[in-house]
């Protein structure tokens, strides 16, 4: 019938591809932070790619199955244990009713994606099962999963023993490179500051979650002097509250950049210096605190080429899995 939660992990949420269309009311799209990994996990168990699965951060949950089904785990690298026996990542494997799935310690990455044949079938709100805890939407009663929850599964599609050739997965550089298209309020900081933002090495701060990732380690930014416009507030980093973009980089007080992610606030009064390109958003979902990061300046054509490359990589995997 379903899956029973025996241990919840740190923060394990039900996520799908999100609920677009309500950001103008402050309700973010949400959905899997690393959409690439969630999509592939769904492909592996023969689901529609937009089906709901679990996103577990830093630590896996412990789940008991009350029915036979298929499971695939992607994203972060963590030992995957079915009744204590290790299973491969990026592969679909069958489970029997009564078996228990749990995980060892995190080795690489930050977020685990667990797909089940048929997908998790909790009630959708505003068109999505994605959990948005701030607004108490989706998930299980608007929250992360908890011990004792029973997660129903939908009707299976076409599950089978499939596996992704890891040569098809994206490579991780060190330091991690996040490509940025400068814009928005980029003109508010001096040229020297603009240059330093790209030259310096940044580190993921502990304040890193689904709403945004904070970075530290670089120099404080210097603002181009101006008389603050009416309504903005007196700090040079303040603007008249406007809307934010997914991936946009705000810098309150000019000190620590915050990249807004899938559960972004839709607006606010801090200036932004541009946005991480759409192709690199998945990558952020796999960054642990203390990871070293470089921001790399790109132009629009590079951003669009990267977006195309990501789409083609998914298509290659889709075709490889379909060919069996």
């Amino acid at each position, binding site marked *: 019938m379903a899956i029973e939660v025996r241990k919840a992990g740190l923060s394990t949420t039900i996520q799908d591809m999100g609920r677009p269309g309500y*950001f103008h009311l402050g309700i973010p799209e949400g959905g899997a932070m690393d959409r690439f990994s969630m999509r592939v996990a769904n492909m592996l168990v023969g689901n529609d790619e937009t089906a709901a699965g679990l996103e577990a951060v830093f630590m896996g949950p412990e789940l008991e199955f009350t029915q036979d089904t298929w499971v695939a785990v992607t994203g972060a690298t963590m030992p995957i244990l079915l009744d204590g026996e290790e299973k491969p990542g990026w592969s679909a494997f069958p489970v029997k009713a009564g078996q228990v799935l749990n995980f060892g310690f995190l080795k690489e990455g930050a977020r685990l994606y667990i797909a089940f044949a048929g997908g998790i079938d909790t009630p959708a709100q505003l068109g999505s099962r994605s959990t948005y805890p701030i607004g108490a939407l989706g998930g299980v009663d608007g929250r992360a999963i908890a011990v004792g929850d029973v997660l129903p599964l939908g009707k299976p599609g076409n599950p089978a023993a499939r596996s992704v050739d890891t040569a098809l997965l994206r490579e991780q550089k060190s330091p991690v490179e996040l490509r940025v298209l400068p814009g928005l309020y980029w003109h508010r900081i001096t040229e020297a500051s603009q240059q330093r933002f790209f030259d310096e090495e940044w580190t993921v701060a502990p304040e890193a979650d689904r709403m945004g990732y904070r970075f530290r380690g670089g120099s404080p930014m210097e603002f181009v002097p101006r008389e603050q*416009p*009416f309504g903005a*507030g007196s700090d040079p980093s303040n603007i*008249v509250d*406007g809307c934010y973009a997914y991936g946009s980089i705000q810098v309150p*007080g000019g000190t620590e950049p915050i990249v807004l992610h899938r559960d972004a606030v839709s607006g606010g009064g801090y200036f932004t210096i541009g946005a991480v*390109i759409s192709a690199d958003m998945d990558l952020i979902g796999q960054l642990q605190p203390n990871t070293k990061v470089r921001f790399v300046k790109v132009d629009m054509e590079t951003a669009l080429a990267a977006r195309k490359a990501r789409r083609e990589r998914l298509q290659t995997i889709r075709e490889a899995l379909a060919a069996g």
Partner: protein
Amino acid sequence: MKTRYTFGGDEHIFVEMDDEMSLEAFFKAIAISRAVQAAKIEGVTEILPANASFEVRFNPDIIHPDDMMARLKALESAANNAERRMTTRIVEMPVYYQDPWTHETVMRFRERHQDPNATDLEYAARINGYDSVEAFIEAHHSNPWFVSMVGFVSGLPFLYQLVEREKQIEVPKYLRPRTDTPKQTVGYGGCFSCVYSVRGAGGYQMFGITPMTIYDPTQKTSYLKDFMVFFKPGDIVKFRPIDRAEYDSILAQVEAGTYAPRMAEVEFDLEGFNADMAGTNAKLMEALNGN
């Protein structure tokens, strides 16, 4: 007012009508947002109007960002001639100023504030030239407000007071944002009031709290059965000060599903307002009070 267009990554275009706040900038942003909506441009996934700006999110696989930019710019001139009037509603919102819950939060985050030795209200009253907190509170609720943006989180309204520029209250945001704000706190930052729709982080100064739910994902609240978010841009709000007894009473009514916010349909015309602010506000209040 000079319009500024810029890309926000490869999926967004941000358009700033003006870098300072005014109702003229708001009306222009709303007019273009509506023109974009009406143009039904293929690839547009979301249109977000804000106080003095707006943003369009689009799918660059469907429309090239440069083409999207050209389409938006072409719509600007049409918006310049748009009427600056709207049929909207005025809503009365009861506010318990200097309540114990926001006060407790104010005290808990003093080290993140500009003036750790004063409360948010004492600080805001002083820097805006008021002799007392009471006089400041009176200025905050004596004239109506205009919802110029909905966002941040879950249906949170930003409100701009319908008074002359020199009477506008202005305060900075907290030096470092708080990690906690009580649900339904009435806050203030820049020239805007806001009402925190849910509990959570926030950087606005805290003045009071309303017993009126404005966001309800369960849609059990009597006046949120049609949609979980109460406010939309263009709504007009009159704050009414209440005491603890009335706060408790209204809260009980909201929870019992019997509370009906007082509201009335009104016309708002920017030219008329600019010509006679006191007269316009008096008419809005007459509509609300049913005279």
